[in-house]
């Protein structure tokens, strides 16, 4: 176990050092989320002015949703980017022949993702409070398991897209960056699930993120989250996690059978 810990911390260090070396990269972590927050925050402030007092809650829902979606999205990206980093720098073979286990690499990249996500969320919360007087604590303690479930879903999708990267190389880049945007409309980030057409509702109910955002809105309204909702969140997250992991392992074995592992990113 202590050996696993040592290996995990070596891989983790390798990813963190990248940011110490490069200011641009460190800046990149927060740039897009902050821009999103600025745009959507000002849009909702404007809408609120137009609608008068009746839309007072809108900004709360929007900003809460925005910050939470970012947890999922950045979680996914961090996991896939840590694999991409190895391919970009042609270091992947060194990692593959090092005596590390798959779960150790996964643990390190999750740790890295958590650090990144935690930092961004903190910055967004501070900004949202200063600019829009939005306080994340309004969600209450429920925010912690909700954020965790969105992060877990991000990891699961991150493993899946990492698998696609092994299978299709850079040709899969469009999918890697695009999948979160494919999921977003069906995750009911900014609107209740009932507002969707029937067919879309059915898709939405297959995503753990949908239940998380419904729960988030309920909490912001001051309501409580039913146990059955938590059940769906946990069950679906576990299923997607298994799917993502299965996809990664299958794609790895496929790449190994085709002799593609040492040439990733060079096709």
């Amino acid at each position, binding site marked *: 176990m202590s050996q696993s810990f040592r290996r995990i911390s070596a891989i983790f260090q390798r990813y963190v050092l990248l940011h110490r070396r490069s200011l641009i990269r460190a800046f990149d972590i927060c740039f897009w989320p902050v821009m999103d927050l600025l745009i959507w925050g000002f849009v909702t402030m404007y809408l609120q002015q137009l609608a008068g007092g009746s839309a007072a809650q809108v900004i709360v829902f929007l900003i809460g949703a925005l910050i939470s979606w970012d947890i999922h999205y950045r979680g996914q990206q961090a996991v896939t980017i840590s694999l991409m980093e190895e391919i970009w720098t042609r270091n992947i*073979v060194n990692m593959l*022949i090092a005596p590390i286990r798959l779960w150790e690499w996964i643990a390190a990249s999750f740790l890295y993702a958590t650090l990144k996500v935690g930092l961004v969320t903190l910055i967004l919360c501070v900004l949202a409070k200063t600019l829009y007087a939005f306080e994340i604590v309004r969600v209450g303690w429920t925010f912690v398991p909700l954020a965790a479930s969105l992060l877990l879903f991000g990891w699961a999708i991150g493993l899946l897209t990492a698998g696609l990267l092994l299978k299709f190389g850079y040709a899969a880049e469009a999918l890697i960056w695009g999948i979160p945007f494919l999921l977003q409309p069906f995750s009911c980030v900014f609107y209740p699930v009932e507002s969707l057409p029937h067919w879309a509702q059915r898709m939405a109910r297959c995503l753990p993120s949908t239940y998380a955002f419904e729960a988030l809105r309920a909490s912001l309204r001051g309501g409580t989250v039913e146990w059955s909702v938590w059940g769906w969140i946990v069950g679906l997250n576990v299923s997607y996690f298994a799917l993502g992991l299965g996809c990664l392992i299958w794609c790895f074995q496929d790449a190994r059978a*085709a002799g593609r592992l040492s040439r990733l990113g060079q096709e």
Partner: protein
Amino acid sequence: MGFMSTRPLEIAQLVFRYPNAGAPAVDRLEMTVEPGEIVGLLGPNGAGKTTTLQAVLGLLQPASGTVRVFGHSPLSDRTHVLPRINFASVDVDLPSNLAARECLRIVAGLYGVRDAARQIDALIAQFELGSLQRHLVGSLSAGEHMRLKLCKALLTSPELLILDEPTLNLDPYMAQKVRELLKSIQRQRGMSILHTSHNMQEVETFCDRIVFLHHGKKLAEGTPRDILARFQSHSLDELFIRVAVSGELFQVR
């Protein structure tokens, strides 16, 4: 057990075919590396040398045949194989955005190297990288980078060292120095080496035994002296060109 499991490398009837490729890249290859032995894998471009090394590292799933490293499969028994081997190649880089020394420190962490700082210092001194250790890997010259890769591969004290054209980018002084270093480390530790090279003078002096590949098949095997005598050739260079032209190693006699 016994002899079988202590042999650093044993390849039997290895076949590997890339998808969409007509002929196999490695075709029913049989070869071994004995403890403490330096084996050179020779052959024209595309002969299947790099492919063979990848199979040894567990980066390929062979179509058929077996690879055993210290008696274990590099595919199904990674935890027994990987800590005992290491690899350096012209084609595989260290992360360009880390400092040279940082790379080695991380490798030490991955392999659990004891007394890492002292070992890193010693290797950096041996490979004359002292003034460059805080430089980014991406800013090193090709030869400096190659020396760093060799430090990386030696840092983990492998029992079997696998090298793919390790001296390709080195100037004659450095190439000579690296060969001497490898030899002395190999003698001290009883390490085995499997390497590829297109430098025939190097191969003649450096290798205990050579395996000659062509189109994935083994054409000849033996000590450099044996092979030269058997095929009545003055030099490996001449022999090599003969193979490349005619595709076979006919006995002149």
